[in-house]
């Protein structure tokens, strides 16, 4: 059975300017021990999904329909105290922009200890402190840094501290929202390598969220591509990279700066991201798509298995598959 299963999830934001449909009828499943990548540009709804799973959405967000099953329970049915049991002990998150996650007024060590004691009140503070030291060793930070304040950490160190924080209560699932966007390439390779080895050691599941296809290709076993709140393609990373079925996925892949000798220019996807207050009817990608026809303008394509894929796992939502 899947560890996490999203069924038909739709999510709206009510803002002063109108209603945004941030996630539209999205279904996804994730097995225990698996790593899933959610790829898409800003506003594609990938972070909204993460916040919906942890039920950390702001008050102006509304889940219109759908269910989020985690280990057999629908998280949307849980009461707030029940949800607190789930948060961090079962599902933890590495938030985007690690620099803003830590409280500047407390030492980082105190914040990690506080997190552990909040979620595991029976633990002694001494044991909690010992756990924090283990976690720091795990993510490659010297324990002397525990008594330092966030501003004394570099960007890479803060990101590692946030990973330590996410691992604090041994969760079954970690959601890493753009964990390396603010970091340079060397630090990115190190942090991702670290997260992946911890995932494999502990048999955790990880959902990576990013707009960077190159980064995803390195860590995710399966990739879901989102565009304007819609899942447009889903499949095993190897298949998806070798033969993308949706034009948007192909565009994202061509936009990756490559070191290959035959690539001399980057390809862009023409046009601008969708205005979510007034998304186009039909396929949301059609205004930017080179293969669009009259049908795309009128009817939204469903997410269906690609014909060439035998086990039916590789799916795409497009009337004119590549």
């Amino acid at each position: 059975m899947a560890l996490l299963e999203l069924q038909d999830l739709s999510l709206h934001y009510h803002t002063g300017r109108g209603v945004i449909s941030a996630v539209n009828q999205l279904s996804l499943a994730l097995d225990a021990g698996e790593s899933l990548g959610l790829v898409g540009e800003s506003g594609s709804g990938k972070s909204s999904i993460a916040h919906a799973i942890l039920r950390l959405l702001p008050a102006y967000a509304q889940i219109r329909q759908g269910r989020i099953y985690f280990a057999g329970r629908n998280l949307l049915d849980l009461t707030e105290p029940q949800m607190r049991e789930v948060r961090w002990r079962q599902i933890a998150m590495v938030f985007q922009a690690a620099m803003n996650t830590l409280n500047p007024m407390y030492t980082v060590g105190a914040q990690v200890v506080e997190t552990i004691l909040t979620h595991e009140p029976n633990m002694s503070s001494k044991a909690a402190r010992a756990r924090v030291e283990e976690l720091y060793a795990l993510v490659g930070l010297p324990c002397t840094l525990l008594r330092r304040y966030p501003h004394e950490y570099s960007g890479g160190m803060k990101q590692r501290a946030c990973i330590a924080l996410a691992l604090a209560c041994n969760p079954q699932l970690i959601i890493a929202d753009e964990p390396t966007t603010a970091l340079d390439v060397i630090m990115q390779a190190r942090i991702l390598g670290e997260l992946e080895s911890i995932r494999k050691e502990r048999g955790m599941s990880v959902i990576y969220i990013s707009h960077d296809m190159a980064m995803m290709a390195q860590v995710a076993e399966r990739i879901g591509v989102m565009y304007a709140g819609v899942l447009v393609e889903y499949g095993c990373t190897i298949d998806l990279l070798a033969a993308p079925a949706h034009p948007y996925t192909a565009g994202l892949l061509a936009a990756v700066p490559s070191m290959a000798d035959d690539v001399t220019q980057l390809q862009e996807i023409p046009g601008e991201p969708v205005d979510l207050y007034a998304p186009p009817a039909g396929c949301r990608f059609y205004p930017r798509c080179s293969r669009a026809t009259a049908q795309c303008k009128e009817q939204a394509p469903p997410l269906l298995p690609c014909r060439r894929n035998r086990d039916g796992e590789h799916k795409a939502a497009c009337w004119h598959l590549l």
Partner: protein
Amino acid sequence: MNSTAQLPVVRTDNLTLYFPLPKRRGQREAQFVHAVDGVTMSVRAGERLGLVGESGCGKTTLGRLLVRACAPTSGSVLFQGQDVSKLRGQTLRQFRKQVQLIYQDPYDALDPRRTVQACVAEPLEIHKEGTKQERDERVRHILSQVGLVPAETFMQRYPRELSGGQRQRVAIARALVLNPTFVVADEPTSMLDSSVRAGVLRLLADLRTQYSLTLLYITHDLAVARLVCDRIAVMYLGRIVEVGAANQILQQPLHPYTRMLLEAVPKLGRQLPVSRLRQADAIRQAINPQPHCRFLSRCPIADQECHHAQHPPLTAYGGDRAVACYKVAATIDVQSQA
């Protein structure tokens, strides 16, 4: 391209900038971050030079020094043969007109309370260029040049109404509206989504040919530098460690740090080398650094000699190439065997 015909637009001579750190209790000596430490380099007329390095290596500071956005501790920057720190009055205004900086974050670079038109016209107003009508015309022209068409509709908008890619285009328009000769672009695409990044990169390339710009492109990603730049300079903790033609650097990196950067570039379809993080890998700052090679603690090929010698000087290595490493000869041997 004939390299002898290209005169440097900007040249630095032993350029250095130290930032003082606040004194901690019980500390005897004052501490300084050696952000830029004895950099001698030149940017040639019409070229695109990439400045590549990790966060904290001083690449942004070096870029700011070149356009006199900050003042050096010692050393000098020569712009078209003139020492920029000595410019005053009218000549300084002329200099400010000719050099521009494009910032990393298009969300912070634009005033949220001014329309696109006001943002882009501001440099023209400061330099008292033309009449109101001429200024409007130039704004309209540059906006269509950067791909914001129809320009009229964009002129009346506010930054919050634009996407990230559009904002960066406005920032580029603002930098280019005065027809500068030298532009420093500080990671202009790192905050953008990958689907629009390519468009902004292509725009920069097109504009460079049209306006015969000289471009210093600052980035941490060698894969981007490869697509944008003619030459690449690799920086590590305040020093240039390798410089040369872009294809040379990428095909035959000589400095061990350049090789490390190349390996870190994510490649599609390649699994990540799973490695334990070591504490030694953490980002370093050059705080009161030791005299020997800055890269020593991370270097895979360092030996006793490196531990005893000073930081290696940037030495010419065939044609356009220069490397600061004592072990270059050994590197070349290994590469020619392989």
